[in-house]
C-alpha cells in the first residue's frame, strides 16, 4: 500500500515515513501543498496523510484540490489543533479521519487501514480469498486455519493481488506499493517475494502472466 505523507515538519515527516515503512507501507513524503498536488497527479496512492499547517498553502485547500482532481481514496488529516470546529470543516472538505498530534504510529496505520477498508466497502478488518484469510492489522495470513508468517513485503504483494483479483498487476505496479520514492529497489525483488509466497501458500495461488506481471484468479 502506497501512502502520500504531506508534512512540513522534517522531524515528524522523516520519522513518520520511516515508521510507517517499518509497518509495511510505502510512503512518499512531501513538505508542501504544491508538491502534494504534483505527487497525486503523477502517482497512485491508497491514502494521503495530510498535515493542515503547511508553509505555502492551507492544508484544507490541498484537501479540496485533490478531491476536485478526482482523488477518492481516503485522506487522513494530521493536526495539532483538535478543535471541534476545525474537524467539522475538515470533514466537510472531504477528510476521512482526523489524527491529533502527537500521534501513535500504530494508531495511524490502523486508521489508514480502517479508512481504506471503508472506502472499498469492507466492514471487517480481515480479507478472505478462498481458503486464505488476510489480517492487515497483524499482517498475518491464515491458510485453512493455519497461520503462516509473512514478511511485510510479501504481505503487501499478496494483499495487492487479492484486492485486485482477476486483474494483472505489473511488476512496476507491485513495486510501487512496496517502495516509496528514494527507497532502493532491489532488482527481481517482486519475483523473489512471489517465489516465497508460492512456497508458503502453494504454487497455484499466484499466476505469472509472462511479459506483463502477476495475478490471482477472480474468486
Amino acid at each position, binding site marked *: 500500500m502506497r501512502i502520500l505523507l504531506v508534512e512540513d515538519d522534517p*522531524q*515528524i515527516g522523516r*520519522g513518520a515515513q*520511516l*515508521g510507517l515503512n*517499518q509497518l509495511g507501507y510505502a510512503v512518499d513524503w512531501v513538505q508542501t501543498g504544491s508538491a502534494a498536488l504534483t505527487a497525486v497527479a503523477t502517482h497512485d496512492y491508497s491514502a494521503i496523510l495530510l498535515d493542515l499547517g503547511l508553509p*505555502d498553502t492551507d492544508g484544507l485547500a490541498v484537501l479540496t484540490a485533490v478531491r476536485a482532481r478526482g482523488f477518492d481514496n481516503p485522506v487522513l488529516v494530521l493536526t495539532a489543533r483538535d478543535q471541534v470546529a476545525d474537524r467539522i470543516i475538515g470533514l466537510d472538505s472531504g477528510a476521512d479521519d482526523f489524527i491529533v498530534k*502527537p500521534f501513535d*504510529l500504530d494508531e495511524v496505520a490502523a486508521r489508514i487501514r480502517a479508512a481504506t477498508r471503508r472506502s472499498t466497502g469492507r466492514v471487517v478488518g480481515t480479507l478472505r480469498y478462498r481458503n486464505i484469510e488476510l489480517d492487515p492489522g497483524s499482517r498475518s495470513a491464515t491458510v485453512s486455519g493455519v497461520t503462516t508468517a509473512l514478511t511485510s513485503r510479501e504481505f503487501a504483494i499478496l494483499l495487492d493481488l487479492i484486492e485486485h483479483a482477476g486483474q494483472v498487476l505489473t511488476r512496476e505496479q507491485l513495486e510501487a506499493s512496496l517502495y516509496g520514492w528514494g527507497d532502493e529497489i532491489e532488482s527481481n525483488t517482486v519475483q523473489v517475494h512471489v517465489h516465497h509466497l508460492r512456497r508458503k501458500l502453494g504454487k497455484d495461488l499466484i499466476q505469472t502472466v509472462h511479459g506483463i506481471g502477476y495475478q490471482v484468479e477472480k474468486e
Partner: protein
Amino acid sequence: MRVPSFGSLRVRLVVFILGVSAAVLCASGVVVYVEADRESQQLFDESLQEAGHLLFTLAEHEAEEMRTTGASHLIPMISNHQPYLFFQIWTENGRLLYRNNGAPDEPFVGGGRTGLGWFDRQGERWRTFALWNNTHTLHMQVGEPLRHRKETSIQFAIQLIVLAAIILPLLGAMIWWIVHRSFEPLRRSTDEVGTRTPGDLRAVDAAKADEEVRPLFAALNHLFGRMRQALEREQRFTADAAHELRTPLAGIKTNLQVLTRARNADEQGIALAGLTDSTERAIRLVDQLLTLARIEPDQVMRGSTIDLAALVRRQAGEHDAAARARRIRLSTQCDAATVAGNEASLAIMLRNLLDNALRHTPEGGEVTVSCGRVNGRVELAVSDSGTGIPAALHERVFERFFRAPGDQPAGSGLGLSIVRSIADLHAATIRVSDGIGKSGTTITLSFPPVA
C-alpha cells in the same frame, strides 16, 4: 483640617450632617434665647415702668388720704398681684413715707434720680425705676429682683433644650434613613459584583447609576474590560502554546517509535537525529514561552537609565562564538545612547533580535548592530544579509507563533513577538526594512528620549 474617616462613608455622612445640624440648631437656640431674653428684658422694663406709674398714681392719691386717714387697701392689692414688685415712696427731704412688705429700708436710687437703674443688695441685683410727682414732693421708687427675670429665662432655656432633645434624635433617624437609601444602589452593585464567579467579567450596569458613582463604575468596567482582554489573551496564548508544543512532541514520539523498531543502524541514526532535533525544539519553545510569560504582565518598567551601547557590546560578545561558527561577520556600530527601561528585558530583546538575524543569515554573511540618536529619539537597529522578509509579512512576523513560509531552520515563532512585547513595554516603535546589500532584513527599534 483632616476629616476623620470612621471607615464608613455612611457613618461619616450621618455623623457630619447630624453634627452640623446639631451645631446649627444649638447656635440658633442661643440666638433665639439671647434675642428673646433681650426683648423680655425690655418688656419687663416696660411693665416695671408701667407698674411704677400706676402705683405712683394710686400712692399719690393714698398719700393724700394717708395724711388724713392713714388707711390703705389698694396698694397691697396691687402688690399681691405682682409678688416680685417692691416699692418705696420717699418725700422730697429723704423720709421714707411708705414701702410695701419685702421692700428694703434704704432707697433703691439715691440723689432723687429718675428713670431705670440698678440696685445691689446682699449680692442680689434689682432692676429699679424711679420718678417724681408733678409737684416734686414725692419720689416713687419701684424695684424688682432680677432673680424673677432669671427664672423666666431659665424656664425658656429649658424649653429650648427639651425641644432640641426631641428634634435631634428625629433628625438623626431621618438623616440615617436618607443616607442609607442613597447608598442602596451602591450596595446592590457591590452585592452583584461580590457574588460573581472569578471568570464573570461582565460590565456593571452603570447607566442607572448616580452621577457620583458613575465614574467609579466606569473605572470598574474599564478594569473589567482590560481583565477580560488579558484573560482572553492568556487563554489564547495557552491554547497556542499547547498547540505549538504538540509539533515537537509529535516529532519526539514518532522518532521514538521508529527507534524502537529500527531494523538497522541507518534507521537508528535517522530516528536519533529526529529525536534530538525535536527535543531541542521543544526545549527552545518552552524557554521562549517562559520568557514571553515573564515579560507579559504589564508592569511599568521605568526607573533606570540603560546604557544601550554597553548592552549592545555585551550581547554582541555573547553571540560572537555562534557567529564565528558559521563564518558570519558580526559587528557593532554604537554611539553613546541611553534609554529608560528594564535592563534584563532589553537584553532579552536584543538576544532575540541577534538570534533571529544569525539564524536567517547564510554562512559567510554579515550581521550589524547599530545604535544612536536620531531626531531626538534613540534608535537600535539589527541588520543582516540573510533571506529577508517579504514586505507583505512585515507585520505578521511579530505575531506569536508566526513562521514565515519555508522558514528553515524552523524557529519557535516567538522570538520576534518577544521583541515586540518588550518594545511595547518601553514605548518603542518597530520598523522593518531592507538589510545589508539588497537582501536581508533590518529591524529598527525607536525609543522615546529619556525624560
